[in-house]
């Protein structure tokens, strides 16, 4: 989830305060000229936001002349609360926000928070799969920006690479040895649906969901760590407290490059892919500038730039970018599992409570 993504970004940065300093000095250094076109863009803080400020925003300003003011957003879910309160108060801190798909749908259901986009002004969105352009009753409200994969990871010194997620259920190999994410919507259920059931369809009925959760319960004896913060899983893999589990593909690649015993694998069922979308605040007066920015990030060259500089997976087909096979491999892979976002929201309380009961054995 984006929430944990944020934590990781925070960890990866050498000092978040350095980012704040940079922001402050940036603002002092560039006094706003009245006629300059500008746009406020929010992104997850730390390393992530700094990469945006160092590489993506300057390229956008160079291409369009629009100045970007970077706004720090902690993650998706918390930011939604902030934006909800700010909208009610009549003044929002940003024009564009970066929401994970479930938060975006939630914002759409809360209503009056996101303005529909003028897709005619965003022709390059045609590069993206239609799935990444989200429409609700009011029109298209979110265009995909970047994505990340939470992958199967193992310690190659301890076990051989599994071909399927199903191998994690084998207690003779993995007893008390796995690290899985503790959140009900962090995609273990999607993995189970893809591995043992009919994929996303399984979420359609309560019985299907119960069956998924029962299958997850069978994994419990093999899980040594149900992590909530990404750093827990990182430490546990490094320390050998766990020898496999679920973790972010790009960070796993970084850890492996640093010499730690970790390998990120795409088993035959694939790995869950989540993504963030640009959404325009309903109170923003910068819809034209926002459309230009979204158009810019939808271009294959910008997608490739973000993959190289931020480590996110491109949302356009890799063949239209100039990413090498190796570069693409370090940020993504195939096949990918698409999470059952709608079900997680429609049956929120039911899934959360059933999942918590499964974990608690209650």
């Amino acid at each position, binding site marked *: 989830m984006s929430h944990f993504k944020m934590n990781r970004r925070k960890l990866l940065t050498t000092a978040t305060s350095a980012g704040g300093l940079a922001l402050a000095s940036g603002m002092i250094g560039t006094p706003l000229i009245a006629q300059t076109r500008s746009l406020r863009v929010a992104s997850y803080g730390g390393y992530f936001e700094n990469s945006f400020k160092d590489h993506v925003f300057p390229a956008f300003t160079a291409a369009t002349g629009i100045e970007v003011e970077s706004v720090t957003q902690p993650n998706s879910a*918390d930011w939604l*609360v902030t934006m909800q309160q700010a909208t009610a108060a009549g003044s929002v801190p940003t024009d564009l926000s970066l929401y994970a798909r479930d*938060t975006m749908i939630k914002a759409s259901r809360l209503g009056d928070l996101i303005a529909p986009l003028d897709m005619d002004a965003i022709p390059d969105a045609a590069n993206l799969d239609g799935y990444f352009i989200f429409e609700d009753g009011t029109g298209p409200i979110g265009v995909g920006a970047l994505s990340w994969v939470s992958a199967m990871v193992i310690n190659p010194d301890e076990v051989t690479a599994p071909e399927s997620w199903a191998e994690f259920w084998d207690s003779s190999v993995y007893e008390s040895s796995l690290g899985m994410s503790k959140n009900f*919507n962090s995609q273990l259920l999607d993995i189970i649906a893809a591995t043992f059931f009919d994929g996303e369809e399984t979420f359609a009925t309560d019985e299907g969901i119960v069956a998924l959760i029962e299958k997850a319960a069978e994994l419990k004896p093999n899980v040594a760590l*149900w992590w909530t913060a990404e750093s827990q899983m990182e430490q546990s893999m490094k320390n050998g*407290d766990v020898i496999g589990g679920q973790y972010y593909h790009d960070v796993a690649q970084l850890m492996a490059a640093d010499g730690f015993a970790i390998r990120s694998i795409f088993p035959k069922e694939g790995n869950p892919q989540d993504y963030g979308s640009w959404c325009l605040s309903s109170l923003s007066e910068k819809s034209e500038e926002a459309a230009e920015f979204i158009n810019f990030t939808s271009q294959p060259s910008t997608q490739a730039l973000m993959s190289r500089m931020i480590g996110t997976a491109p949302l356009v087909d890799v063949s239209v970018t100039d990413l090498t096979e190796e570069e693409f491999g370090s940020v993504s892979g195939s096949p990918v599992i698409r999470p059952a976002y709608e079900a997680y929201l429609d049956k929120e309380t039911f899934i959360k409570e059933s999942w*918590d*009961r499964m974990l608690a054995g209650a």
Partner: protein
Amino acid sequence: MTAVDNAKAPLATPAPRARWPLGSLAMALVVGFLCVTPFILVIVISFGQKIEGAGWEWAFTFANYQRFFVGALWPDEVTFLHLQRLYYALYYAVLASVLAVLTAFPFTYLLTRLSRRAQSIWLVFILASLSLSEVFIVMGWDVLLSNRSGLPMLFEVSGATDWLKRTGWFEVLREWGLANPRNVKFKTSEFATILTMSYLVWPYAVILLYPALSRLDPSLTEAARTMGAGPARVMTSVILPTVKLSLIGATLLLFVFLLGSYVTVVVFAEPAKQTTAVAVYESVRGSTLDAPFGAAQAVILLVTAAGFLAIAQWLTKRSEAR
């Protein structure tokens, strides 16, 4: 919060020579406002209504409280999940506070027998350790209990793991959840949770017990000794009765303090054994944005703590009356 409430009382009553009656009234109002408003807000929110797939709205429903006792799916299904979390909150807090007081008691007793100078060095050291935050302490124990950098490593290198495997104790540890097929493991476990919690409050225990033990009149114990009582007898019939109230008071204070532990539980307790405090945070800040249910759980935790304090107060009064 009881400490705050108690502190508020003397402020509210006018000082003997009140030169600024309006000033103290204003002060009482500000303190009252700061103390009371957050509580009222939490209580009001706890009656709010969750909207599936979105946020929540102001309402007046008991659904959140009902969910705490029988689960969200009642009456189709009943679950005691949330009661179980409250049970674990109480369980950890009781064991850890008792453990801390039990181990701090002999230490503090011996401390009060030392020279003045040695006592102050120890006390300064203990006071300084209070500045360590929960996060820092948990991090330390996390490293100490880790497979490659802590105790399990020591077990393996010293041959203790092999010895355990030869003698069959290893299988017992696996059953207790303290080992995986390769080595012993202490994370996640009740052992690590309770250990860290009592470590966390141990300095408080010493500081809470110190005044009572240092005031203990040495002539009492000396008199008992001259009358022929052995050290054990002196302990049970002279020292313990004198400091009984302090022991109970310290345990209670630490217990209430530990009820709300968050970091320790998140890091060291498996999800099946996590507590209400963790669930409150997950409800309010997690992806469900279910602030009303979080607030309801917080209110129940508060009422539980208040209940325990009231019982303790009553027991103390009763023993004093005798």
